[in-house]
């Protein structure tokens, strides 16, 4: 049996077909969150504006400078990163769980799409939303403070890698989720506390022991600080160490996600 026979008169290499399948998943994901932009893109811009107003404008001047920057400047990268993390995660968890819940994930499962491609497509969708929301919140931040970019390469790399990591986290959450409550438990009880304690609003140099050492166990600290380095050129964490942690998590979560897909956890009986 030839590949040609399998697709009627159409002869395409596997690589061409997989590329089409991958772009289809990504475009479908983009369309999904852009169609409902009032629910997906606008809220983080409004929420983050409030952070800038309250913590930057109202409380910030009383706190004074931090690491040589005004408090508003210091927290801006953390707030942008917080929006990226939350949106990358929630995009994948809600989209993949929704597809499971409505059973239209079966459209992809019955097609000859490799599991790695399904994962890559959904993660790429999450990264796109993270990047778009991050860019929007950055624009909002410029209304409150003058933001320069210290290193474009580091900034862009951290945004993409962090979005990837949290998209993977959302994917794993969606694989295990059986009801809608299950997709809000992790963001509420794990993601939000870790983000607030991840050096968004303060430098860990201000913390005493054991809180400083405990903070080092929080992976979000590494992302926020690497991003802050990209924007301001200051960080509590050495850059290679931060990238090693982010890449390490991406590798582990990717392998675990593929393992879940191969076993069909929550997808195949």
């Amino acid at each position, binding site marked *: 049996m030839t590949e040609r026979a399998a*697709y009627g008169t159409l002869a395409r290499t*596997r690589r061409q077909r997989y590329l*089409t399948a991958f772009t289809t998943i990504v475009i479908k994901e983009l369309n999904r969150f852009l169609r409902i932009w009032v629910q997906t893109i606008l809220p983080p811009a409004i929420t983050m504006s409030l952070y800038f107003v309250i913590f930057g404008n109202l409380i910030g001047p009383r706190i004074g400078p931090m690491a040589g920057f005004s408090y508003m400047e210091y927290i801006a990268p953390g707030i942008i990163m917080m929006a990226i993390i939350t949106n990358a995660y929630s995009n994948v968890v809600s989209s993949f769980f929704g*597809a499971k819940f409505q*059973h239209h994930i*079966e*459209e992809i499962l*019955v097609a*000859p799409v490799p599991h790695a491609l399904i994962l890559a497509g959904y993660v790429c969708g999450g990264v796109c939303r993270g990047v778009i929301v991050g860019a929007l919140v950055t624009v909002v931040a410029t209304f409150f403070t003058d933001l320069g970019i210290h290193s474009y390469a580091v900034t862009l790399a951290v945004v993409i890698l962090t979005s990837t990591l949290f998209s993977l986290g959302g994917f794993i959450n969606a694989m295990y989720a059986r009801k809608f409550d299950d997709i809000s438990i992790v963001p509420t009880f794990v993601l939000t506390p870790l983000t607030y304690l991840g050096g968004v609003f303060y430098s860990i140099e201000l913390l005493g022991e054991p809180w400083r050492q405990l903070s080092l166990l929080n992976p979000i600290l590494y992302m926020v600080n690497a991003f802050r380095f990209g924007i301001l050129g200051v960080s509590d964490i050495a850059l290679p160490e931060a990238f090693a942690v982010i890449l390490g998590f991406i590798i582990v979560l990717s392998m675990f996600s593929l393992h879940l897909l191969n076993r069909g956890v929550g997808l195949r009986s």
Partner: protein
Amino acid sequence: MTTAAHANPADAAPALSIRDLRKTYRGGREALRGIDLDVAAGDFFALLGPNGAGKSTTIGIISSLVRKSAGQVRVFGIDIDEDFPRAKAHLGLVPQEINFSQFESVLEIVLNQAGYYGIPRRLAEERAERYLGQLGLWARRDEISRNLSGGMKRRLMIARALIHEPRLLILDEPTAGVDIEIRRSMWRFLTALNQAGTTIILTTHYLEEAEQLCRNIAIIDDGRIIENTSMRALLGKLHTEAFIFDCEDRIERLPAIEDAQVVPLDDHSFEIIIDRDRSLNEVFAELSAAGITIRSMRNRSNRLEELFMRLVEAND
């Protein structure tokens, strides 16, 4: 009707070949207890059985939505354990439950499915127009799918399953809850599709549907195949035949026909069940003698139902 270039003279493998297929769900429920089944290329095949017999589990395993516990499945000679992606490329599935996104348009659903199969956009658009057109949905292509009627949703799932022009189309109760007019138009569409070369496997609870459409049949009950033969051979097992007579006048008294069972249906019609060997001329003579004028007569087409019930009850 246009379908894939299916003909491949070198390919003599059956469309579907199943050997000793078993499935035990978590919790110990044995859904399939060792099924053997062959469906020839080009066949229109009925897979029947009562609820919970194992039909959907079998279809789920073939289409990768259910993991098998043991056994072998080959699609056009391709073992799903060896190259499932290539086997999947030959398969189109119309599931029992509606399983498309309720927030996407008709066209988006079909084009996305084409994308998953690696079909380039321009070709996908041509095929979408063709299949949505044939199924009466092209005018509704921009409609959000949740606004479609039940019958349209079923037809959309058929169009979606055909977008990659599969050689084997599996339909799991495609006409459930659909009115008779749409059901008959779907029958015509499926018949034409089969005549153009697509192998079709159909599960249905409308036994009349299976009797009219399918050439071969397997009956599954309690996870086992209890009958696997041609429709003609199966119906040949019936020793009696039923005819429905519509009368010109209101029936005041049912006629008594020798060696036949007469069952009233309404004021103007009744059913006569006679031995298959018996001449109908004798029946007409007796009806004439009874002063009954027949306006029309038809064969009762749900004979399969009798056999089905007989086989399933015998298996209990």
